[in-house]
């Protein structure tokens, strides 16, 4: 029962990946659409970033003094200056840990 659902979910997911790559040819997308598609990373990833920071495990908004906000700000600054992925993630995590384990403890 669950396996059947997993298989359907898998087929559906595969179709989301395959449809545009395999069934769309370059000529079907005009220059205007291509120009808009340049923005896809900026238009998609904040939908993962914002809820990951501002909404907690229970689906409600966090407080304004939540350590995640500070951690995210540090990550943005370090990421912007260093252009380094590992530095960005580590800086965000370490500053977050510093607040929850040292400051607020």
């Amino acid at each position: 029962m669950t396996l059947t659902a997993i298989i359907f979910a898998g087929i559906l997911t595969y179709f989301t990946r395959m449809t545009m790559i395999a069934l769309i040819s370059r000529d079907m997308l005009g220059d205007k659409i291509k120009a808009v598609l340049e923005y896809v990373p900026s238009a998609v990833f904040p939908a993962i970033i914002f809820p990951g920071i501002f909404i907690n495990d229970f689906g409600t908004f966090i407080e304004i003094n939540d350590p995640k906000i500070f951690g995210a700000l540090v990550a943005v600054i370090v990421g912007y200056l260093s252009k380094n992925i590992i530095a960005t993630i580590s800086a965000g995590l370490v500053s977050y840990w510093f607040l929850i384990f040292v400051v607020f403890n």
Partner: protein
Amino acid sequence: MLTKKQLFTRGMLDISPHMLSVIPFGIICGAIGVELGFDPYLVYAMSFIIFGGASQIVFLQLLSGGASSLVAVASVGIINSRHLLYGAVLSEYLEKLSFIKKLLISYVVVDQGFAESNKFFKKNRNEEFLHYHLIGTGCTMWVCWQIATLSGIVLGSFVPEELGLKFAIPLTFIAIVVQDLKKIDHVIVMITCGLSSLLFFDAPFKSYIIISPIIALFVAALLLRLKK
């Protein structure tokens, strides 16, 4: 011209920093599935059949919360519909491939792999075997995801929950978009998407994950019109 092997390796290298967040997240995903009381084999089967981080957790949480299979499957489809946008962007670079190769390569298109390969593609348009970069990012992601979820399933959540490592996921995506903060149009598009995602967070089937990009792309289209 880079060889296929060089491009594949470059893809592996470009995505590997993201494993800092992907591996703990995979362990958590595997462990949650078992904790929710699902058959370990089924939890692992998802990593192979669905291969889509957050959607796997949502699927199991919905089922264990008493939702119907239909709702769970629909939610996975909606969460993963963002791949349609990735595919539309990538299709330009993959159009020379045969139909079969397109079908195969599609299986390994994931968020971080798309992001890193797209950056590489933009700078190296003329490479003949560009798609090997995407295979490199995708396969690295696939292997790490299988190992991470499997170890979460077998060993349980050996990553201490107090560390809050789920927070590494938004951080990994911050690392992906942060350089675009230099461009004001991108900043507007990002803020539109982010605020919309919070506004529509409670929309059914987790549809905020596709509603907010669509709104943000509309704003992008408006910005392009204003620029002219």
